[in-house]
């Protein structure tokens, strides 16, 4: 059988004027020009880009041995005839048939920012090129080039940087937090082009991080982003019930990335100093959110069993980040706090016995609050052992 095949190959080689025993015969190896598909790609300006191309290479006949190789040692970025960058990734496939074959080489090409900048500065065409050869004909055959265009914000969506941090402590990359603490992460993403970002927040909690980490999806993320820029994506509240190590990942499905960024955090079964193990939530019944705080205004709240004293505090209201809000808005993020303020330092307050759940604001406190300004009011409840056993969320009011 082998003899028959060899004879057949020999006959074909002879018919084409080449000898299969000779090195680098003119007609063996790659036939015609390899073709890229697609043959053009857009790259967003000013950041690293990438595109996917499939090279189609025809090889006849497959040659010296059934294990002959079809390969391309490197790719080149060519600007107006000058090579301005190379990609040293060898594309290679082993020929396994003796008949005419078509080989396809999928390639994800990362384009450095420096190549894109050079192309934008010049009016010359930018191409990505490869040549293919076979082991028995190492004379390379140039493939048709992939034409590259540098675009602005309208091109295909590409991510160029992802940074994960915790929301609080601000910007931290590792957090050790108490059980049931409120914790969120932020993915800051720099992107080029426009399109729909498809991603997921996934987590492995201590029920698996002690063995093989198993990641479950916390939330599916879909976000339209446009015209190149930066977007911040907040995670849902992260689980903090179980003591131990948690691993959070931001998995991007489209546009695909090689490896997802991750954060680790540790949850402690512990007490916050000055707070009892279980701090009850106090509901502030009046004044209403963003309501008025007149002279003699009445404050009432829900009782905490076991409280020996309450402290009502007035906190300054700090302006939130105007530009931040605007940039969030640009990318369609729902603003969480449309009031644009956050609680700051304590300005005034008063104590009350633990059997009280409503009172008029005393003159000593109300006169410390400037009229026509916003403040936050918060109620804290103390237990007999000097620990806080209840607290309300700070609620914004307007002093009149």
């Amino acid at each position: 059988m082998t003899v028959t095949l060899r004879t057949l190959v020999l006959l074909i080689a002879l018919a084409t004027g080449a000898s299969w025993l000779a090195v680098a015969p003119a007609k063996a190896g790659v036939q015609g020009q390899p073709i890229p598909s697609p043959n053009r790609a857009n790259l967003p300006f000013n950041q690293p880009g990438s595109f996917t191309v499939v090279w189609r290479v025809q090889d006849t006949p497959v040659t010296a041995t059934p294990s002959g190789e079809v390969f391309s040692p490197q790719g080149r970025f060519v600007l107006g005839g000058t090579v301005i960058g190379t990609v040293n990734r060898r594309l290679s496939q082993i020929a396994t048939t003796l008949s005419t074959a078509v080989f396809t080489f999928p390639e994800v090409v990362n384009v450095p920012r420096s190549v894109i900048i050079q192309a934008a500065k010049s009016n010359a065409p930018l191409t990505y090129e490869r040549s293919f050869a076979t082991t028995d004909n190492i004379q390379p055959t140039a493939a048709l080039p992939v034409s590259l265009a540098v675009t602005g914000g309208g091109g295909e969506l590409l991510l160029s940087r992802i940074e994960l941090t915790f929301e609080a402590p601000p910007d931290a990359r590792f957090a050790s937090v108490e059980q049931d603490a409120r914790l969120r992460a932020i993915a800051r993403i720099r992107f080029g082009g426009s399109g729909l970002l498809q991603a997921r927040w996934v987590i492995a909690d201590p029920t698996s991080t002690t063995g093989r980490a198993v990641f479950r999806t916390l939330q599916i993320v879909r976000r339209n982003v446009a015209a190149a820029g930066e977007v911040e994506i907040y995670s849902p509240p992260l689980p903090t019930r179980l003591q131990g190590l948690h691993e959070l990942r931001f998995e991007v499905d489209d546009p695909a990335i090689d490896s997802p960024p991750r954060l680790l955090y540790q949850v402690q079964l512990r007490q916050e100093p000055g707070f009892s193990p279980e701090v009850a939530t106090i509901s502030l019944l009046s004044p209403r959110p963003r309501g008025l705080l007149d002279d003699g205004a009445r404050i009432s709240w829900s009782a905490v069993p076991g409280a020996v004293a309450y402290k009502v505090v007035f906190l300054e209201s700090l302006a939130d980040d105007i530009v931040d809000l605007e940039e969030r808005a640009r990318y369609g993020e729902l603003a969480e706090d449309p009031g644009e303020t956050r609680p700051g330092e304590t300005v005034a307050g008063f104590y009350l016995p633990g059997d009280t759940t409503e009172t008029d604001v005393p003159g000593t406190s109300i006169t410390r609050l400037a009229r026509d300004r916003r403040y936050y009011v918060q109620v804290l409840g103390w237990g007999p052992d000097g620990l806080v056993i209840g607290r309300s969320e700070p609620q914004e009011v307007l002093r009149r």
Partner: protein
Amino acid sequence: MARRANFKTGNREPETLRPRRKTRRYARQRRGGAAILLATGLALALPAGAPAQDQTQDWQPVLQPSQSGDYWTPNDPIAIFIPPELPIEVLQNLALELDNFDVTSLIQREGDFALLRLPEPLAPGEHQLRLVEYGQDGSITERGFWTFEVRKNAAFQNVEANANVAFDGTRILTGDNLQGADDNIFQSGGEGRIVVQEGNWSASTQANYLYDSRDEQSLTGREADLGEYLTTLSFQSDDLSSNARLGHHDIGANDFIMSDFYRRGLSLDIGSADSAVQVTGFALSSQALLGVERISGIEDPDDRVQGAHVRLRPIDSLRDNLELTGTYYLGEKTDTFDNDFDIEFDDAFDVEERSDGSGFAVAADSLWFGERLRLRGEFSRSRFDLDGAGGAVDPETDEAYSALANYAILQNELVDELPLNWNLGIQHERLGTFFGSVANPFLIGDRITTTLFSDVTWDTFAFQAQAGHQTNNVNSLDGLPRDRTLNLFLNGSYAIFPGPEEEPLPEWLGLPSLGLSFSIVDIDQTDRPDDFIGEAESQTISSTASFSTSYDTWSWYLSETVSSVNDTLGGDGDTLGFLTSLGSQFLVGDRVSLAPYTQWSLDENQNLNDTVHTWLVGFGAGAEILPSVLSTNLNYSYSHARGAQNTLDTHIFGGELLWTFLQAEQNQPGMAFALSGTIQESHGSAILSTQDRVYQVFLSLKTTLPASY
């Protein structure tokens, strides 16, 4: 990039309430009922004598020395002698203030003394105590004013140390498909903080760490390593304020050159105590770091930025209304690709990517007309070499500026007894094509943007609107098209919150809130290079509607987002997507909680006829079987995707049963046994047939120690 507003909206102390003399009379603004109520408590607590004209008009309370001698300790009671002859009419009108807190209601009688015991320890430092009497004519007389010092001990005004450390030992009882997981695993994590304060000086340090007997689960590849840390040495006097910081911090610069730059490094700031001047010098790592390697963050000159930041409030009368800032930096960055949390996608050559640059930014921020008008301007110049010395691209110098005006057209105007606010603003920003900074890695240059924005809030109603115009190719490069981008964004939210005197909502409605948002971005290529092949124009639309409501023991939410990208040149980039989210939380009695949730998405490429359905469903549950002793937590999730991106259907079930046999308290360890585990089962879709099953069961001894001094 984010630049924060620097002025506070509600931090001014009224001039009329700054008692500095021992006895002072001033008109009372209004005598509130609260004062009577509180002062009645004082009257009941102290004995009342027969009225005596002299004593009622010119009496002096006396603060008694502390039990500790020259200073008070945090838990010392405060005793004030009140003349026993004072009539009840006077006692009824007394009020006691500690710092800015009215503490009248906490006063107890002990002989002729008013004794104050707070429910919390007094913070170390200087405190002010003030006793006032409300007169019949509406006046307020300051009867006593004292300052006193609270110290932790004789050596230091304050010494505080606390640490929270956990250590877990775990054994795998049984499991399958664990990919060589160790049978015995040890983990530890925690944080600690020490503060020392004496007089004008204070020092603090804080740090966290993680240990895992498997290095692949660690922070840096080492089994045990430091996380983040910060050490601060501060000096604060009446005139001067200075801080030296080593560790992870952000020096507070927020401009084009440096923004949200939280890094490990060293900084020193010095300034006047009244905030008129502050100068900060800094040297910080260019990349975010964890671990003991490069402990100071500034050892590597190839991966470091250094410079100075200046903050001035030059005009006394405008101290809270005008601020000037300036930042200068010089630095280099080497991307080493070894961080899991910061990923740069510029690894085409598989070599280290270097960049370097320098630059400055100056900005003025101001508030005018009763803080109704905010004006901010910034100018910046950068030199940036994106591929470092010797790279293919030469360094470029470029400029950026921005101007912002924001006016409060309505500021706390009462409409139906509720404050109405309306802000209107405009911002114009120009960033040169090659503007860039090592200290602001998210900034993208090359845009001229003009944005109009408006915010309205009234009661619990809020509405934001924004419209913007943007162009690129600022430096008119030959090989780059010019895009014109228009965007419009609308967002509204409303929460229904009836006051105690208003008619309650129907029970079935709970306390609801709802939100609506809409955005559209239209991109048009207005100018193209000759023979350009990269035509790309699109219209992107997103809208979201959300609703949530809460009841006594449960709550739920629903949101729907519709997104579309329309390729206006007729290419194959048209997509349409829907995302629906539904979830709720239940409390069953005091001990059981349940939180089910689901998300469903449909993403369709309309030209290629590709459709992807994704479905996620899950729940979390917790139960206190025996409070503080035996508890359990469970979670389950199922994910499913079909269409162009076929993935496996995956069920994950995890749970833990925790038996706490020693409850942790301050300086006393807590110990618990935990039986926990996970099952993951994956099934192939129509195309994929892979099956994967992982299960693992662990027994852990969990210890924790909250320590404090």
